[in-house]
């Protein structure tokens, strides 16, 4: 082993691809987490009361994509978004007169397609966490609201959502942490391509360490990723302590 001082760190700072992959990861993580959490809350509120058989069926079905192994579910997304006019998504859009797209093969559409994948895959998990959170809200809150003859929508807005704040914090932070680290799905979907359009930080670390074989530089990239995850975890722990005190 040979110590090279700060050489690895300086090389990273000058690395355009590192900055690009960081930006791609931020865009991917934040857009998928925002959509995922908003959708999960919505679905949880819709299916919260066992209103009907359909609501129960929904809670069962929505978890299936999460249960399927990551590599397989990414394989499934390839079956729906392959870049030919006959792919299911292109056929669907053709009904509305929208032309055939290359999706994962198009450098502008590849990342949004992955975000959509990520929401499909993970929204079931977040929804079930919200459903559990809603169940834990004491009935007394709702009874008081009913005496005041509050409307359905104002009960949701002024009681349910504020009381779900700790759950929202949990879902947001765990999804952020998982998003920053996600590797398998993107590797199967695009391997970071086309070009470098979907090269997130984990994909870039893998590429640097095991395709280019620059382990020293990959180790620095890995430490940066670790620092980001650590920061998010600390925010989560702080936030949860705050909730308990508040």
């Amino acid at each position, binding site marked *: 082993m040979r110590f090279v001082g700060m050489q690895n760190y300086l090389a990273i700072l000058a690395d355009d691809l590192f900055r690009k992959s960081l930006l791609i990861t931020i865009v991917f993580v934040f857009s998928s987490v925002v959509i995922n959490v908003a959708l999960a809350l919505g679905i949880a509120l819709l299916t919260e009361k066992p209103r009907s058989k359909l609501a129960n069926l929904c809670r069962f079905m929505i978890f299936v994509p999460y249960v399927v192994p990551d590599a397989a579910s990414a394989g499934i997304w390839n079956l729906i978004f392959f870049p030919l006019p*006959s792919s299911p998504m292109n056929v669907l859009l053709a009904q509305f007169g929208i032309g055939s797209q290359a999706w994962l093969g198009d450098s502008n559409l590849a990342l949004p397609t992955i975000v959509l994948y990520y929401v499909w895959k993970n929204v079931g998990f977040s929804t079930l966490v919200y459903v559990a959170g809603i169940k834990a809200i004491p009935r007394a809150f709702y009874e008081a609201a009913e005496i005041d003859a509050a409307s359905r929508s104002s009960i949701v807005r002024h009681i349910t959502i504020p009381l779900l704040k700790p759950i929202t914090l949990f879902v947001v932070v765990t999804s952020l942490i998982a998003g920053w680290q996600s590797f398998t799905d993107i590797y199967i979907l695009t391997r970071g391509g086309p070009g470098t359009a979907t090269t997130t930080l984990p994909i870039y670390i893998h590429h640097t360490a095991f395709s280019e074989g620059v382990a020293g530089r990959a180790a620095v990239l890995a430490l940066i990723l670790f620092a980001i995850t650590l920061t998010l975890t600390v925010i989560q722990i702080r936030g949860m302590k705050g909730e308990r005190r508040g």
Partner: protein
Amino acid sequence: MVNRNPSKEKIVDLSIELLILIVVIFSISPILILILDSFKSYSEIITIPPTILPRKWSLSNFIEMAERVDVVTMTANSFIVSGSITISTLFLATLAGYAFAKFEFTGKDKIFMLTISKLMIPTIVLVIPWTSMMTRAGLLDSLLAAVLPYLSGAWTIFFMRQYILQLPDDLLDSARIDGAGELRIFFSIVLPLIRPALATAAIVNFLWGWNEFLWPLLVLNSKQNFVLSIGLAYVKYSGGVMTEASVNYAMLAAFSLIYSLPVLLVYLLLARQFVESIVLSGLQR
């Protein structure tokens, strides 16, 4: 005042049902497409006009897949890897969790903090040192290397500790007074009481093992050592061709279905236990 107009309520209920139906379709239609595609020929999948049901239900994708890749060996390897990870983790992590919950020893809190801080380290960070360790130990390209780092797990230790903490100390103490040895207490008193936790930990660890991709991708090189997850990457990217248009989607569908089937079957049988286990485990992978 709120206007509780019955016909308006009905419309609201109906539109909620409609929204739920859209969510169900969004969640499940990709899975249905997977199942249907795996019985279609490649040319049927890529030609216009598309079909929904296969023109002819045929097993030829599965037969062709079995000729090109040794899917039986890969399935066996996946079961060996996930099974040994599960059994070993359940044994070692339960013992460790028991020690953290019910024994006093020097540096206990610090060792415990160190153990759970491992949960914060992403796998991509860990595999870099793991790879150089396995290279030096001469274990590259063996199933042993694929399971070694996972023989115990921080999450399971943490989970078991929390569960065992709830057991009353009196129970263990009275067994000690009756002259039971420590191992006997563990096996005949503690283990039977924590059976639900063991079931949860077994489901979670087996799923993680079945799902594991990055580490096997790095340590398993020869095809007879592949597990299903990297077999899938091989099927998609075989020949090193990376353009989307050259992927054989019929094969990809057949392989994805084989890989998912065991997990889907268990989910159908044990949905409630499954959901509880996974939601408990959070997103810690």
